[in-house]
């Protein structure tokens, strides 16, 4: 039985949760439930075309992955993929942002144009670059041949030594506007007085960049890098369209391997285990991102 005093107190304690309930329900439905289901699948030998026979295998799928040559190949490719894509996107984005921060008469147009690759759907980008790289009909081979840089056309996507780099280049083109826009926004928050003061102190252009611009952009760059690492690590659409992971396993990354295991072999259990391993690796990056955000909010 409730006393007169505890009634309102309980209501008081429950109230915030009532307000949170809609958000919690949606989060549970679209994030927590699928995550739990993935975890459940990863512990079973779940094959989609055998829905009546789903034996529990414990950590079997994870152990199988550790002994799977393709898993390790994909893991190494994933690291190369992330480092090359994010690194080059960042450098290109930084350069673009610095250029776009100069004043020239068509700056507004340039800023709008630079966002185009970012706005295009990945599948279109994949198809576009596939044909640009084509051995017989591609514009890249044509230009290089005419310029005399190569003597015979190169099968960019069919050679194991060029395939991954070729796909990376397509993704760099797609992703650099994100960095450019983020960094440009950061650049515009740096007060001109800082540069004036630096100039009075006799700082060169490089020193101004090194000691004024970069420190001021540190926060923006760190956040953009962390976000982009998470996105690039997960992205498989462009690879899937351009090479399907081939030739051989040359462009296999971990999410692509998990995808093929789930949707081609229909081995949802093994695919889920691979996806969870990728998620565990990414949690390190996510933790870094969350800590940064928390720190910024405290400040």
């Amino acid at each position, binding site marked *: 039985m409730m006393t007169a005093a505890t009634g309102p107190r309980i209501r008081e304690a429950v109230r915030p949760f009532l307000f949170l309930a809609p958000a919690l329900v949606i989060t549970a439905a679209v994030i927590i439930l699928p995550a739990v289901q993935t975890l459940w699948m990863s512990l079973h030998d779940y094959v*989609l*075309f*055998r*829905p009546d026979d789903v034996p529990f295998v414990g950590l079997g799928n994870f152990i199988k992955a550790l002994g799977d040559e393709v898993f390790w190949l994909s893991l190494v490719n994933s690291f190369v993929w992330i480092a090359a894509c994010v690194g080059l996107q960042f450098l290109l984005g930084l350069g673009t942002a610095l250029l776009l921060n100069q004043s020239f008469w068509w700056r507004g147009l340039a800023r709008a144009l630079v966002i185009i690759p970012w706005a295009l759907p990945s599948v279109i980008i994949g198809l576009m670059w596939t044909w640009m790289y*084509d*051995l*017989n*009909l591609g514009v890249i081979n044509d230009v290089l041949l005419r310029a005399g840089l190569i003597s015979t*056309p*190169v*099968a960019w*996507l*069919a*050679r*194991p030594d060029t*395939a991954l780099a070729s796909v990376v280049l397509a993704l760099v083109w797609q992703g650099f506007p994100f960095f450019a826009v983020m960094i440009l926004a950061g650049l515009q928050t740096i007060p001109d007085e800082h540069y004036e003061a630096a100039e009075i102190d006799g700082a060169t252009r490089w020193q101004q960049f090194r000691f004024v611009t970069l420190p001021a952009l540190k926060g923006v760059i760190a956040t953009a890098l962390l976000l982009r690492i998470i996105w690039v690590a997960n992205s498989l659409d462009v690879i899937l369209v351009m*090479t*399907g*992971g*081939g*030739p*051989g*396993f040359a462009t296999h990354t971990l999410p692509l391997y998990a995808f*093929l295991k789930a*949707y*081609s*072999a*229909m081995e949802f259990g093994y695919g889920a285990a691979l996806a969870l391993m990728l998620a565990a690796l990414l949690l390190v990056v996510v933790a870094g991102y969350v800590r940064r955000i928390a720190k910024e909010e405290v400040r």
Partner: protein
Amino acid sequence: MKRRQFLSLAGAALAAPAVTRVHAQSAQTVRWWYHFDNPQQTPAELVAKFEKENPGIKVQAESIPWGGGNDYYTRLYAALIAGNGPDCAMVKLNNQARLVQMKALEPLEPYLAKWAGKGDIADNLWTMNKASDGKQYFLPLQYVVLYLYYRPDLFAAAGVQPPKTFDEFLKAAQAVNKDGIAGFGMRGGGGGHDHWGSFVLGGGATFDKGGMVSDKALAANRWFVELGTKHKVFPASAPTDGFRQIVDNFKAGRTAMTIHHIGSANEMVQALGDKVSAVPVPRAADGKGWTSFGDESNAVFSASKAKDAAFKWISFLSSGANNVAFNTFTGQLPVTTSGAANWTLHPKRFVDASMQSLPLMGVLPDHPKTADFTRTVWPQNMQRALLGQIEPDAMMKAIEAHFHG
């Protein structure tokens, strides 16, 4: 709320499903999934004709993206498992075993027994489409057979004849392999197992236990891989070339031969005129051969609540003039004897090459792992063998292991 009001509302709520059910019976809806290579084609005309002939049945035709087959089947499996599948759909043999294992298909014998159009479809098509449990789940709709496209002008200039055997094929490919033209436009990307099959399955490999690692099979595969690695009659992009690349390369005059079916004949002729012709794929020295039978059927799903109506619709599509009309949309060949007799959509030489290829036609095994073989296992291993990353024999061992553990 007053008690009487509540009761009447509750009564109405209970009655509602019954009312809709009665309504559904008076106008049944058949959901049918299809895919056309050319998404601009639509079966709307046929649907209208059918609905006119069968008042009380509505056909909801849903175009599903094909994506090399995988997009289509992933959606189909997911929809069936989620209990939201179509009543009937276009299906191919390479997924029949999986669908049978899922108990997703409805046997058609009781319906076929009463269907007048059954005799107009050739017996070998019925046999070809039978499931491994002996039942008939598939109703043939259209077909194509893969054959060898070649360039008569280049062959004449090099003084060679269209090849009938593997040896002649190699000689011809080498003779025309010059001036930036590759002898054979080989497909190493998705769907390329058909090319490999003509030479390696035709050369004696089988999908039975041990069939990929027999001496004959290993030798046939070595010979095929060497076409690329040793004789270099494939273009450098062969390891990842797909359908679009082999057709475009041939049309652009970059390859002198390739293997595909009648579906690409008209665009080849548009680009090359009479400088393109076709013959059946070459045979092994022992006279055996293999070419891919590109099948397409309709099936009714066991979970359907409108099976009779669904069968009416799919049998409509496989009979006489309707089947001819359907195949003018898809660019494939009609399954009915009456339809084939007056076929005018393709130049005759390609129809002839298709007919002459029928004795060679085969299909991949009716096995749950076949779909993954065509999508990942074959391309990955073929590409690595063509690039010299693995020995040709290792490729065959990997295929053997995929099917037989």
